[in-house]
Structure formats: C-alpha cells, structure tokens
C-alpha cells in the first residue's frame, strides 16, 4: 500500500568548515563566511522517505522552515525526487527555539493533511539539540522512533525499525502514523538527478520569482513569469504565519520559553605552555620530561 511521507529539513550554516576566516581576530564570527548547506542527517531522512516511496508507492512532501534562502534545500529535495516542497517563511517565525519551531512545523503538517510517516534528521549541526523531532511527534500526538537506522518492514499500518544506540541496536515495532529521526549511518543519500535538476532548476518561491524577473526579459511581468512557473509545476509553496492555523503566542521568539541570556565569544586564557620544536631532539627531550613527571612510562 502507498504511504504518504513528510520530511522535515533544515538549511544550516556549515559549522564544520569554520576556519580562521570565519572567526575574526576579536573572537566574533563572520556568519556570512559560512556556506549554507542541507543539514546532513536531513538528507538521510529524505533518502529513507524516497526509498519508502520507491518500494511502496505514495508521496514525499518536504517541509522546511527558514528564510527565503532556504528554498535552496527544497530545490535540492526536488532534484532528488520529492513530489512537493513547502517553505515556511515569515518574520514571525524568527528567533524560534525548539519548542516554537516544533509548534510551527506541527501546524504546517496539520495543514498538509493526512500522513503515515514523518522523517527528520536526528539533529541539525548548528544546534545539535536533537529536540525538534521528538517535540514535533509529541505535538502531533504520534509515537517517535529516534536514531532510526533502517526500516526492516513496512506493512499495513505497522513499521519495524532498527535503531542505532550508543552501545547497541534495538528493533522496535510501531503503529502508524509515527515520526522517525534518522541517523547518518542509515544510508548513502542519493545525489541530485541530472534530469530532475534541469527540470526543477527554476523552481522558486514567489519572492525569488520577483527577483528573477529582471534577468528574464522574455517575461513582461511578474504575473506572466509566475503563470509560466505555475504551469510547469515550478512554484514552491510558501506559507506564512497567516496561512497556518497557529496561535501567534507560540511562534518565533515570543513562543520560545528559552532565552539566550548571553553569548560569550570564546576568548581563551592561554595555559602556560612550552613550545617544543618538531625535531628528533625536541621530541626526545619532551618524552624525557614526561617520564620524569610520571606522565608517561
């Protein structure tokens, strides 16, 4: 039987590539120097959803909350095989902690309608909290299967999943609908398909469409371009707070119980250190010193 899946994805700054250029001399951060990428484990989640569709039929809808630039991860999802993509973008969503984020995502999922499975990455590399998945599950009132590594069986209204835990594995059986958070070891995410990349290259949210108008002289007006994109299924749905049946008190900064009291850029207090030359003599002297202090040997 076909299954309808929703995949939650996030565009994140690539915190893994923080280099000297990103951290300034004063210890502050130049965020714009960080590339924005598809959160790695969200790609594993998308891959798992696409495999379910290939084996059982159904649909894959990808949902992301973020600024307009996050439309890029939705295009990336289309290139890989998503049927429908939706961007949640509104100033009212800004400053959300995991509680407000999961509330917003829940409202959007309710608007999408019936689903069998929700997939998301175990955690995002910019916050590493691993909280949004379980919190969305709780707000939807469905069970969660965290650390999902493989779907062993999917039949009727039941799923059997292998979970990767720190010191072992666990196999659980759960009734649908449910939410899975997927770990990086689950699969090898497929690359974008060349054919789909050509087909969906122009897919855009309305705001991007306007910005592109200048480049495309063949379209006389925004309306003409939009109707062309709509005709070819290239309009990325964008929902604002007004599109959701959401209580504004639970959105964005206002809906976030946690507040950042302060952020300290890390100014290191140097430990008293001894420089050892990278030579055979230098290293031998170091080992001797460590042996004398019973650190080694």
């Amino acid at each position: 039987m076909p299954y309808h899946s929703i995949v939650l994805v996030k565009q994140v700054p690539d915190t893994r590539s923080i280099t000297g250029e990103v951290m300034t001399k004063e210890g502050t951060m130049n965020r714009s120097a960080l590339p924005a990428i598809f959160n790695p484990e969200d790609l594993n989640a998308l891959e798992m959803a696409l495999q379910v569709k290939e084996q059982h039929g159904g649909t894959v809808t990808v949902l992301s909350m973020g600024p307009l630039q996050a439309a890029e991860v939705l295009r990336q999802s289309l290139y890989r095989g998503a049927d429908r993509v939706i961007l949640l973008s509104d100033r009212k969503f800004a400053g959300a902690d995991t509680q407000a984020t999961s509330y917003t995502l829940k409202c959007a999922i309710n608007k999408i309608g019936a689903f069998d499975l929700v997939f998301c990455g175990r955690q995002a590399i910019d916050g590493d909290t691993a909280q949004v998945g379980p919190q969305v599950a709780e707000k939807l009132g469905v069970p969660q299967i965290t650390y999902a590594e493989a779907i062993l069986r999917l039949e009727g209204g039941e799923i059997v999943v292998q979970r990767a835990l720190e010191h072992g594995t666990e196999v659980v059986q759960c009734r649908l609908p449910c939410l899975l958070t997927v770990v990086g070891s689950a699969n090898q995410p497929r690359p974008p398909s060349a054919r789909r990349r050509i087909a969906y290259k122009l897919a855009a949210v309305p705001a991007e469409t306007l910005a592109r108008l200048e480049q495309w002289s063949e379209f006389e007006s925004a309306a003409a371009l939009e109707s062309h994109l709509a005709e070819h299924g290239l309009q990325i749905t964008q929902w604002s707070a007004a599109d959701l049946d959401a209580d504004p008190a639970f959105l964005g900064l206002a809906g976030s119980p946690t507040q950042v009291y302060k952020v300290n850029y890390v100014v290191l207090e140097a430990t008293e250190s001894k420089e050892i030359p990278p030579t055979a003599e230098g290293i031998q002297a170091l080992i001797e010193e460590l042996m004398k202090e019973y650190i080694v040997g």
Partner: protein
Amino acid sequence: MTENRDVWVFIEQNEGQVAEISLELLGKGRELADTLGSQVVGLLCGQQVSGLAQTAIHSGADLVLLADHPELAQYRTLPYSRVATDLVCERRPYIFLIGATPAGRDLAPRIASAVQAGLTADCTDLQIGDYLLRKDNRLYKDLLYQIRPAFGGNLIATIVNPETRPQMATVREGVMRRLPADTGRTGRVEHITPHFQAGDFALQVLSRQVRPPTIHLKDAAVIVAGGGGVSSPQEFKLIEELASLLGGEVGASRAAVDAGLIGREHQVGQTGVTVRPRLYIAAGISGAVQHRAGMDQSNKIIAINSDPNAAIFQVAHYKIVGDLSEVLPLLIQALREKTK
C-alpha cells in the same frame, strides 16, 4: 504562594544499575538545591527497581519518586513520558535534569513539549543566577543558567527559561562530578501509580542487542586524539600506534568522525565524551570550543598542529608546531627508545 524550588533528576537505570550520568546529576542537583534551599527529587522508573532508590539517596536525593511497573521494565518513550509528564504537571518542579543518553535525549524533549517547558541540550555547566528581562525590566532571581557551547561549538551561550517551569536541561556523562556515596544519608521513597493510556503502548521493543563498549575513553589515563588535520587513514594509523605504545585510548574530534576516519564512540567533546586523562595528545585538532569542553581538564595536554594560531594551543601545556606525518613518527620513535 511561593513556587517550590525542587530540583528533579531523572534516574536512568539499566539492568538493575543506576546509570553513571544519573549519579553525576544527583551530585550537581544537590549543589543547586543547596544554593536554592530546596530538595533534590529523583524520578526512578522501572520494574523491581525499588532497591535503587537508596543508591539515589546515598548520592544526594532527599526524595525518590518510584514508579515500579511491568510496563516500565525497559525504556520506551511513551510509558516513561506519561509517568514523568503527569508528575511534572502535578508538582511543577523548579528544575528537571536528565542525562543526555540515547534514552534521555529521546525522553527530555517529549516531556518538555508536553508541559511547554524550555529545554537546553548538552549543557556543560549549570549555575544559579539572576536575569533581567529587558523588555519589561523585570528581574528574575535565582534562575538556572544553562551553559553550553553553541554554533558548532564556536561560542558559549548561557540560556535561561524565565517564565516556564520546570527549567529543563540535559547533560552528557562525565561533565559533572558525582558525590562519594554516603550510606549514612537518609531520604524518603514515595510510590507512584502510573496512569497509562491505551496509546502509550503503540510501540513494542522486539529485540535489543547491547554491545559492551570496546573503548573506555572516560576512564582512560592517556588519550591520543586525531582531528580534521589528519589527512588520511594511514596518518590516523600513526595516532592508533602512538596510543597503543602509551597504553592509552584513541580519541577524535568531530571533524575526524565526520570525515569517517573513526567511529563516533571515539568522539571527545560536548556532543561526545568528556575526559580528564593524565595525558591528552591532540593531533591535528583545531580546538573548537565543542572539543575543548570535553578535554580541557586533562592533566597534561600536548597539541600538535601545523597552524601556529590553532585554538588548541591555548589550552596546551606543550605546543608542537609541525606536520603530523613528521611529528607523530618522531614521538613513536622516541617512546620506543626510552621504554625499551
């Protein structure tokens, strides 16, 4: 009415043993409760685990809420969160600490969502302090400062939850220190009857395979760790060789784990293991806060990096600026000569 200021700790247990992290949190909870003038309450769920309540009391708890029920025999999200959520709603503790274990990271957000509380993951420090909310100039006294590296570990954020209770936080094992068990300590045990609902049993555990951990980073006396500066699996072999010569364990920064050079169980740092060995050798590790948070308490630190400005040098006792492929063989050779 003054709100209660109780500090709750989730007591995780496996196979009749209280998890190390829970003992560490009881120690930290004790310190926080003493500052607040309140009590430490342990929440213990399981089947036939009443004997563990005393362990919790000896480690700092004043009261243990004991939910002993066959459906709680092994950890499952929904039955456990049912018990915890009902109790939290009923008694509204001031603070609730949960270990950042696989079970704790599954459970904590579920509870936080159900009771609409703020939750901070993987805290590296917890303190009590005041907070001035600028928008209405209101001063909140004695909040829980939830301190954690943020943004890939490049800055340190202090998070507060001024309005919601409990103030929830998870902490990784090894970050806090447990108290020495005091068998003279006494406390109360209160039996809790769970009120499950039909939907709580939507998930069954079919099988569970536990691999005994093959590495013991937390208790290792010597750790040799590799980072993003390790350019190849061959070069990583040098790190393993050096660790084995020193009778130590192999550690890694997140960059090395993400690059696939070594398994995640070797990761040292905020989202990995926190260690305090006698000797820590950081090879090709740049030294992001996220990593340093897990190793800067080491007794002696040797850092090897080709970049003389690498942040890791700031916490190192011995600084070696050079290429790993040259320095590591020199260390191996010098050790072989001295110890033969």
